[in-house]
């Protein structure tokens, strides 16, 4: 096999070495911290994803060693290859920040502000994005686009109102199941996810669309309204499953399993399982094994992604840049996106959840 050449890319003045063919985004993720642009549509395990939401726009101030011309427009880092000697500005570019703020505003334009009744609240990428890049008040005075919630199969409900048209679920259905029955209908702001005439999505792996959805548009019907995610305790667990890796994350309260999802990495994507492949899980594991006794519980999950889930105990918070921060980025240390320490009132205030042995019991909570 031909050896892959390594190239050097400088992002926000931090230089990393990555193999040729790496996208700017993946290189930036290697730097980590806030240098990595937010992503709403790109999903590293889904072929063809990315390029659509435009939250990951960056400025290329130097094209490459060979052709140092800057790129005239901001580019979508998730779909633009890094070149040797390329210099990129992400959080150090005013233009980028402005565009990102703009995209955030656009994404929120038709998004309902129903976080209080949305199951995704607390683990929603759009919430994170708007904390970081949004404004306090909206500038739109117009009615938002509305749809009726739709049941698309026994276990999944679609709230089209909340969809941001990232296309991830379409790619997931296309790439994980035998055939897909849902897609995008209509165009422009009328575009919507649909199964056309209320078909149901019930392939073995279709539940993963819930995990890839960055917002609360696709939700797990077996979990809906049962718990706020930050009141549950994530535990890594596994079982012997013939269809998938069986490596999951259980969302428990006391001995009760409220929800089963795939394990996620720090970027909110499905983590690589021990077999080296993305750890998509099957419907049976996700929707049916809802008893603690169905699982071998390994221990509390490490939530490395900024999240209210870690309940104010950010012991391993946002991925810190591995390379020392330079003057330009100092003061922009990774921050906690949601500072909701108050929530831990509900919990035993002095005990760190990860210190509790075994699954949390209901008496661990007030």
């Amino acid at each position, binding site marked *: 096999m031909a050896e892959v050449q390594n190239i050097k890319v400088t992002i926000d003045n931090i230089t990393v070495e990555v193999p040729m063919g790496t996208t700017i985004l993946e290189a930036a993720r290697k730097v980590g911290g806030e240098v990595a642009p937010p992503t709403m549509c790109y999903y590293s395990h889904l072929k063809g994803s990315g390029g659509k939401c435009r939250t990951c726009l960056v400025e290329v101030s130097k094209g490459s060693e060979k052709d140092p011309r800057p790129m005239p427009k901001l580019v*979508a880092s998730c*779909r633009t290859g890094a070149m040797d000697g390329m210099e990129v500005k992400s959080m150090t570019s005013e233009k980028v920040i402005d565009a990102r703020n703009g995209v955030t505003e656009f994404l929120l334009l038709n998004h309902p502000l129903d976080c209080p009744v949305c199951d995704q609240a607390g683990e929603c990428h759009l919430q994170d994005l708007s904390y970081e890049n949004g404004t306090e008040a909206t500038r739109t005075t117009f009615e938002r686009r509305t749809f009726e919630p739709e049941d698309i199969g026994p276990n999944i409900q679609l709230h089209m109102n909340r969809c941001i048209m990232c296309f991830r679920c379409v790619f997931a259905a296309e790439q994980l199941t035998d055939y897909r029955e849902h897609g995008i209908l209509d165009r422009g702001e009328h575009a919507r996810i649909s199964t056309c005439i209320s078909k149901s999505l019930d392939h073995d792996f279709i539940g993963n669309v819930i995990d890839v959805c960055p917002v609360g548009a696709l939700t797990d019907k077996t979990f809906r309204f049962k718990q706020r995610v930050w009141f549950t305790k994530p535990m890594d667990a596994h079982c012997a499953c013939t269809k998938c890796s069986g490596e999951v994350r259980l969302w428990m309260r006391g001995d009760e399993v409220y929800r089963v999802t795939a394990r996620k990495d720090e970027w909110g994507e499905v983590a690589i399982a021990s077999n080296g492949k993305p750890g998509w899980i099957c419907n049976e594991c996700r929707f049916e094994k809802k008893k603690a006794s169905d699982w071998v519980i390994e221990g509390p999950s490490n939530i490395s992604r900024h999240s209210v889930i870690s309940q104010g105990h950010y012991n391993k918070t946002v991925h810190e840049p591995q390379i020392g921060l330079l003057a330009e980025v100092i003061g922009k240390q990774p921050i906690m996106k949601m500072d909701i320490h108050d929530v831990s009132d509900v919990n035993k205030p002095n005990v760190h959840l990860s210190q509790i042995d075994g699954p949390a019991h209901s008496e661990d909570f007030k």
Partner: protein
Amino acid sequence: MKLLLENAHVEGIRYYEAYRKTGGYRALEKALKMTPEELVEEVKKSGLRGRGGAGFPTGLKWSFLAKPEGVPRHLVVNADESEPGTFKDRYLMEFLPHLFIEGMIISSFALGSNVSYVYIRGEYAWIPDILEQAIAEAKANGWLGKNILGTGFDCEIYVHRGAGAYICGEETALIESLEGKRGNPRIKPPFPAIQGVWMRPTVVNNVETIAAVVPIINMGGEEYGKIGVGRSTGTKLMSACGNLKRPGVYEIPFDLSVEEFIFGDEWCQGIANGKKLKACIPGGSSVPILPANLLLKTAKGETRYMNYESLSDGGFQTGSMLGSGGFIVLDEDQCVVRHTMTLAHFYMHESCGQCSPCREGTGWMYRVLKNIENGKGKMEDIYLLWDIQRRIEGNTICPLGDAAAWPVAAAIRHFRDEFEWHVLNPEESQTRNFGLAHYANPLEVVSA
């Protein structure tokens, strides 16, 4: 001088006999005796620039076409022509189908495309029949099909009807649609020249661009390049519409002044009903609108001509673009706010919905404009509009986002007082239009 429409009025020119009698298919005969490389070279020398809107040099585009061994290549002609104000391709295909088909065969030979496509907008319902008739005639006379004129070159042309979407004029959306998929623009790179239809190297060109290849081969690239001014070579079809005495499709020389084109007897013959010229969009709805004073003269006070360079003189600050040649003229009775709102509605309706700035921003701009137009606007709304368009432009997957942003930006840039008047006179603005104001006055200050 006419290079394309010379014979448009010859009796029966739509059919093979008449076309052949006027010298049709001579260029193809000549081309088949040359090598594909020589043909590309001729087109390069001609300086021909794409007539679909962007004005990219055609010869250069052709030379970018990848030629991997054993992989078929394709020519796809963009006949989607959905840009408001543009209807010149329709005229060409309807009245001179053989000229177009001859251009296609020559271009296919130059590019090594054995299977070429015409992607035609669905609303042109009657034109595919005309083209298919011409294709059948060309075939019956040995200009198309297997082993053309014994050269060993095979070529088939298929006409593909679109379903009526502006976005399918964007070349990669067109390719997706041609492949039978949803017409969403692709994320570039890869460009069509490397991976186009069915991931094979593809050249997408406008109808008029391809038709222009015929006179280029007939007279030689060098000769063609001498016609016109500067980097605007040859001639251009303009589709003039709006409040003109004589709207229609005209073939213009590039040294024609804008004033002559609007008012000249040979051309549009002035503004209809004795009204005055207020504003004009010179190159299809996506390019910036110009008030009369900036249209006829550049900011430096020089005469403006109908060519790529002169129309874009002054950049977007004080200039516009030749674009696709859709020349839309507004008289003193037209309301720029209403007009801009109509365009915004168009872009909202035509956005494919893939990327957030365009999907959400186009509708937002439309709604804000609608408020202003209906006397419900506020001063901040004008700033808001500016902000929205600024954050769409350049941040989208395909240029439709820019095309939606530019008309709004230009309207505010040049007609801000009209927007403000709507806001300040909500009631009056419902009963009368702002009128001409100073837009037609000669420019007093010459600014850069």
